[in-house]
């Protein structure tokens, strides 16, 4: 059952075309990874799906219905949640208040404050702290928890490992299995290619706004990936 389908997506930043004719699909419960060098269009892709990028041509179909051109907040309410690049927590809010913002999407499901605290026990002690007064890894957990509380069908994760120590990144990815148990699909952008291959069932490599290579993680050779990543 296709959850998300992109058909011929073209995205622009002003006059600059950032995505060229991007097409792929995600099935319910699947984990798909996007890899590629900086500027390849990965974040543009995420923002387009989330509805934050107004200049688009092509189709995005979510759960059978088109969400092309739909307002971002309405898309979130339909079941697409984002963990944005750089975390983007709300500095004026405490950890718990940041988490509770996920509830604003108005979707009920497995994820509640309690289950999120079970997933990330470290956050429970920190919950009254200002969101900026915790470590990078803990902030990433809050950002994920906030998105989970939207009880999404599809979770968009942009650069989870950015700026974090490998040990912390491992801890975060260790929670993936638990997160997937609630039935959601994940589309993640990841700089760490090995990590991306490990955790996903399908990988798309982006180069200059186009998909240069697609395949199952275990089926792709390093040489092919390198070629698709850097081009030339």
């Amino acid at each position, binding site marked *: 059952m296709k959850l998300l389908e992109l058909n011929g997506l073209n995205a622009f930043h002003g006059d600059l075309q950032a995505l060229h004719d991007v097409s792929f699909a995600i099935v319910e419960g699947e984990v798909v990874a996007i890899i590629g060098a900086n500027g390849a269009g990965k974040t543009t892709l995420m923002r387009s799906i989330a509805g934050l990028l107004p200049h688009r041509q092509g189709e995005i179909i979510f759960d059978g219905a088109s969400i092309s051109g739909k307002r971002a907040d309405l898309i979130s309410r339909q079941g697409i*949640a984002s963990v944005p690049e750089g975390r*983007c927590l709300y500095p004026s809010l405490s950890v718990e208040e940041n988490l509770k913002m996920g509830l604003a999407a108005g979707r009920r499901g497995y994820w509640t404050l309690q289950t999120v605290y079970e997933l990330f026990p470290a956050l429970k002690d920190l919950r009254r702290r200002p969101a900026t007064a915790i470590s990078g890894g803990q902030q990433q957990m809050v950002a994920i928890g906030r998105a989970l509380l939207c009880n999404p069908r599809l979770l968009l994760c942009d650069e989870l490992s950015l700026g974090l120590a490998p040990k912390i990144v491992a801890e975060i990815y260790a929670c993936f299995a638990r997160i997937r148990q609630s039935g959601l699909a994940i589309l993640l952008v990841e700089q760490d290619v090995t990590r991306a291959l490990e955790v996903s069932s399908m990988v798309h490599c982006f180069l200059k706004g186009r998909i240069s290579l697609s395949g199952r993680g275990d089926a792709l050779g390093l040489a092919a990936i390198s070629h698709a990543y850097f081009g030339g």
Partner: protein
Amino acid sequence: MDWIPTILNGLLLGGLYGLLGLGLALVFGIMRIANIAHGEIIVMAAFFGLMLQRLTGLNPLLLLPVVALVFFGLGYVLQIGLLNRLLGEDPLVPLLATFGLSTMLRNLMGQGFGADIHRLNSGRLPFISLHMGFANIGVLPLIILAISTASFVVLALVIGRTGFGRMVRATADNFHVVQMQGVNYSRIYALVMGIAFALTAIAGVLLGMRTTFTPYSGVEHMLLAFEVVVIGGLGSLWGPLLAGFALGVVHLVGLRLDPDSGLLYPDLLFFLVLLVRPQGFAGLRQT
């Protein structure tokens, strides 16, 4: 000993000044919109109160809820209809719009009401005083202070303790990301503008009970409200109240020492604060 009544009255007046600035602070803090028409909203509310009073014969204090509700609606419509379209990189665009609006409203009121001075009839209230040992405190100023402080408290509770308040604070922090949690930031802005208008309208009616007003009084009040915001500091809810107290005291003490100085000393305090502590009393975020 003789200064105590002046200072006390300054504090009472300051409560009103704080409320005058609260709406402006709210809008600027959440949406970065400098509403130059703020003074005209104050005066419009006073005129609206006046017309309601002529219709119903009621004391203006009883009319406050109606005025607040009507102006909430006006603020909501203004934000949705006009100001939401102007939000973007350049903060001077909304300022230009509100400047134009201010000019229009001021002169429309001038065409409609002329240049006569008006005042709301508060019955016997302005003449009743409480006789404390060291001073006589007017009941009306006391009531006004109570209403102002109550407004601050209610707003603080709403912003700090409710789900709606949480959404407002989050939207003020980052209106892009807030959409990712299903929040329609345009609607939040409209609600905030509505609340700001309601608070400002209440202040306008209270002001109209205390002093006289004309269609052209708005500019003076807008500048004073702006001073309240700057001295209070951006990012704080209680800053404007403290700033209001300071300005109220400085105003009355200044008038006592220098009877026809108008708002000179509050204006000078504004520049002094700019010089010495630009972020204001409780300033957290930079201007």
